[in-house]
């Protein structure tokens, strides 16, 4: 990530330096460059207070263990050893990994297909659909999950009416076997529209004369989509996947809301974030909760960095 952006803006900076030569060593110039710090410092203060400091603080907290009997004492990496052998934490990690494997492709396929189709149409109907597909993004995640929990509900949900109308038995969307799919559906519904708009904007920025050339070469619509459009928007796709990956591994709001009606299928440690939350706020185990939160943060960071590294050709991270 770091390398990628310095690679981006840098040529501009070099060009500017040569086109507008400045007395670089002059004291006036040096004093002026210090203004940069002044502009940057308010943000840096917030950054230090609410990102850097909490991270160090959490790591520090995680090195201690406090119990009523013994008080607080330094236990080094003990909490981490405990976390990575804790079946509840490991199950949660595996679960969000499984969600990532199913949920990200689901969102991506819907978003990509919608964007490719929208890119090939210009009717009022396609413009309206573009807006309608995006609308769920404007709904807060909590409200979206609440709506779906009503729709899934066997008590007042429409599913019973719909399924009996076609003569099928009504599935229980909130059983432990089906809750996974029910959650995937909510997330796909909520986020595909956002990704669709990002991919659509990238498609629109492709120079149309390339399509002209492809058509002259005899490429059909599918070939144009697969061989030209897809490779040309690959850096946007990498970014969309990175966002989806970071979001999925932190899965929290939707399962917490659905837990209201599906206690049996979603336990308090369903995802690592939920586990950390219940450790801290139900059991006051703040040290262990810090270790879980810090481990999750580190794993998400490492995971998204690894993904960007593996796709460095597409993402421009070289």
């Amino acid at each position, binding site marked *: *990530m770091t390398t990628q*952006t310095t690679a*981006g*803006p840098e040529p501009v*900076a070099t060009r500017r330096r040569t086109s507008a030569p400045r007395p670089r060593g002059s004291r006036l110039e040096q004093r002026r*460059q210090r203004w*940069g710090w002044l*502009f940057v410092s308010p*943000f840096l203060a*917030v950054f230090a207070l*609410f*990102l850097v400091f909490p991270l160090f*603080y959490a790591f520090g907290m995680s090195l201690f263990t406090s119990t009523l009997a013994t008080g607080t004492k330094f236990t080094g990496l003990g909490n981490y050893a405990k976390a990575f052998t804790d079946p509840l934490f490991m199950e949660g990690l595996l679960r969000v990994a499984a969600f990532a494997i199913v949920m990200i492709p689901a969102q991506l396929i819907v978003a990509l297909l919608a964007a490719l189709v929208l890119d090939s*149409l*210009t009717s009022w109907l*396609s413009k309206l*659909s573009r*807006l309608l597909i995006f*609308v*769920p993004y*404007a709904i*807060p*995640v909590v*409200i*979206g999950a609440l709506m779906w929990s*009503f*729709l899934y509900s066997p008590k*007042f*949900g*429409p599913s019973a*009416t719909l399924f009996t109308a076609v003569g099928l038995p009504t599935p229980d969307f909130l059983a432990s076997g089906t809750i996974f799919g029910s959650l995937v559906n909510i997330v796909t519904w909520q986020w*595909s529209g956002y990704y669709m*708009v*990002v991919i659509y*904007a990238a498609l629109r920025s492709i120079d*149309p004369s390339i*399509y002209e050339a492809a058509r002259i070469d005899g490429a059909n619509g599918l070939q144009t989509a697969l061989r030209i459009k897809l*490779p040309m928007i690959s850096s*946007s796709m990498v*970014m969309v996947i*990175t966002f989806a990956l*970071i979001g999925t*591994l932190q899965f*929290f709001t939707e399962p*917490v809301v659905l837990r*209201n009606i599906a206690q049996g299928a979603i336990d308090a440690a369903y995802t690592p*974030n939920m586990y950390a*939350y219940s450790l801290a*706020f139900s059991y006051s185990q*703040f040290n262990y*909760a*810090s270790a879980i*939160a*810090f481990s*999750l*943060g580190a794993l*998400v*960071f490492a995971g998204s*960095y690894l993904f960007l590294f593996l796709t460095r*050709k597409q993402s421009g991270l070289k």
Partner: protein
Amino acid sequence: MAILNTRGDHADALTTVTGVPDHAYRGPRGQRDRDGRRKGGRRIGSHVFLIILAIYFIVPIWWLFVAATKDTAGLFSSPAFWFDDTFALFSNIGELFTHQGGIYWRWLGNSFLYAFAGGIGATILAILAGYGFAKYRFRGRNGVFGVILGSVMVPLTALVIPTFMLLSQYGIINTPWAVILPSLLSPFGVYLMRIYTQDAVPDEMLEAARIDGAGEIRTFFQVALPLLKPAIVTVLLLSVVGTWNNFFLPLAVLTDPQLLPVTVGLNRWTALSNAGAGGEQVWNLITSGSFISVIPLVLSFLFLQRYWQGGLAIGSIK
């Protein structure tokens, strides 16, 4: 090769998109119409696909609208996707004013306060920092900016529990500040402002203002700031939405019911109603309250289309 080409074009095209969001969508229209007309059959198929997608994305919202107009009995007895005989939307709204002393409106007000205080603050910090990074070459600039960029991959939910512990040490837990202050942190906003400033504010113009005798602060306000307007609106919209949607942070740092944002409050009502507590079954208030709470964001997305489409597009080159 193609990838090498797109990198450069891509960055330019997308930054232009922010400036003049409509521009990118105008280009290839004529050529596409010809293309579409040539394959009339495929357009019908594409439209059918889009309509199915649009129905999937809009039906839950339609359901919410219909449900908001029903009383509790109607929610359970009438068809899920059509109106009941009694139109109870206005009596539901009336009940929202009296239930628990009209706390719902207080929640809605809190959501506005947190979203705007957090969003405007984050935007101001991002503008200043973006300008500082883009237009001054102070020592340590690249190192600091690299750290900020890397932090985009730190999952913000991993910070919630450490932030909670820090804030409770300083006694600002369970106050509006506990939600607003951490919401000021927007590394992604800084990144967007930096790449936008780099292109939109020419060095020569700043140089000219300085030669005319303007100080650094005056140069920033009178020369740079007006040029940044499109990016400012984009970052503001994204950060207001981000704070409005945030669930984990207020859930952790607020316990006073009077301070909750509407998302956490509605989730609380749902949890109580599901628990079957006799006096707390307020299904009609949950649906109508949810419906009212989504109106402001959906409307602002509809009216600010020009901006968010461009904004999401620069997001994709991160």
